């Protein structure tokens, strides 16, 4: 239920009010367009996440298997030692990109997959099992990085969508109806005043006629 605003019932106000309604309407339409675009982008991100998540989790599971095999054969201590010695030089190149005003991360991969020598654990414990485990985890890491980026985008889009939706609703259900109510009120009052003036004029005319 909209409450009318307190505004003087003049013709000037009527014109201003019509302009305000037009502006609010325009704002509403544009924000709706933005909402639709956000929903489209979100849908796309979700579709990609579903795919990416499935692949990443499958690879991660493979990696864990390779690791437990390595620990079983080589021994936990040896494996942990290699883990400590491995070169920890994985780097990600992250910048930002912009979707309709929201900043989201953009990741360009530096080479995550390395060869045995580059990995750095001491040669005497080098075993193919260890290399295998390392390789599977490198692959998993690459996929997980991609997934993390997609999720960051989806969360940012969803949050912006929530904000935009609230604004669209505020315009559609509160502001614009209120403005329209006020418009109706002013038009009614102006009408009344016209009629009052008309009746008054008639009475004055009648009095003048009588005086003659």
């Amino acid at each position, binding site marked *: 239920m909209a409450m009318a605003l307190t505004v003087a019932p003049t013709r000037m106000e009527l014109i201003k009010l019509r302009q305000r309604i037009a502006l609010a309407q325009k*704002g509403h339409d544009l924000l709706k*367009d933005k909402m639709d675009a956000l929903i*489209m982008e979100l849908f*796309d991100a979700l579709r990609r996440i579903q795919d990416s998540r499935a692949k990443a989790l499958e690879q991660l599971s493979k990696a864990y298997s390779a690791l437990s095999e390595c620990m079983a054969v080589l021994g936990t201590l040896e494996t942990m030692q290699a883990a400590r010695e491995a070169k920890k030089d994985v780097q990600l190149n992250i910048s*930002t*990109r912009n979707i309709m*005003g*929201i900043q989201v991360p*953009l990741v360009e991969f530096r080479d995550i997959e390395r060869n045995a020598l580059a990995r750095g654990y001491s040669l005497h414990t080098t075993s193919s099992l260890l290399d295998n485990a390392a390789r599977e985890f490198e692959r998993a890491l690459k996929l997980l990085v991609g997934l993390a980026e997609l999720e960051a985008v989806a969360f940012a889009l969803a949050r912006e969508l929530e904000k935009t939706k609230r604004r669209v609703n505020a315009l559609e259900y509160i502001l614009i109806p209120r403005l329209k109510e006020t418009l109706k009120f002013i038009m009614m009052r102006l009408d009344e005043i016209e009629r009052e003036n008309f009746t008054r004029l008639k009475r004055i005319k009648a009095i003048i006629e009588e005086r003659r």
Partner: protein
Amino acid sequence: MDRLIKFELGRLNIHLPKRRISLRAALSSPQPQILTKDGGVHALKREELEFLSKILSESDWDKLQLPIFISLEPKLGKGAARIMGDVETKVVGQILKKEKIGSELIIYRPEVAVLRRKLPTTTQYFFVW
């Protein structure tokens, strides 16, 4: 109340670039990006730049300004958008397999989706009111 609406409308396009960059300039930069009006950075993906360089003749590389604007104008109708610019419409027309009329191209929601999927960083939404 009006101030709020005007403020919101002003904010709609604040993510747009201060200045666009040509395809050639972007290709030759080690870190192709543009600065946005609200002080942020928008990076252009190399993958997309290379794709664009392949579908355009070299003479057009200086003419294509990035990012390509997808103009959302409510008066066009629900979900419709406009692409403007000679080379811009050429590129979009090729991707969407659509004929352009002069140097303008109107595209519809499913086509916008395809375009955004293909060029997520080299296209940007632009609100017109």
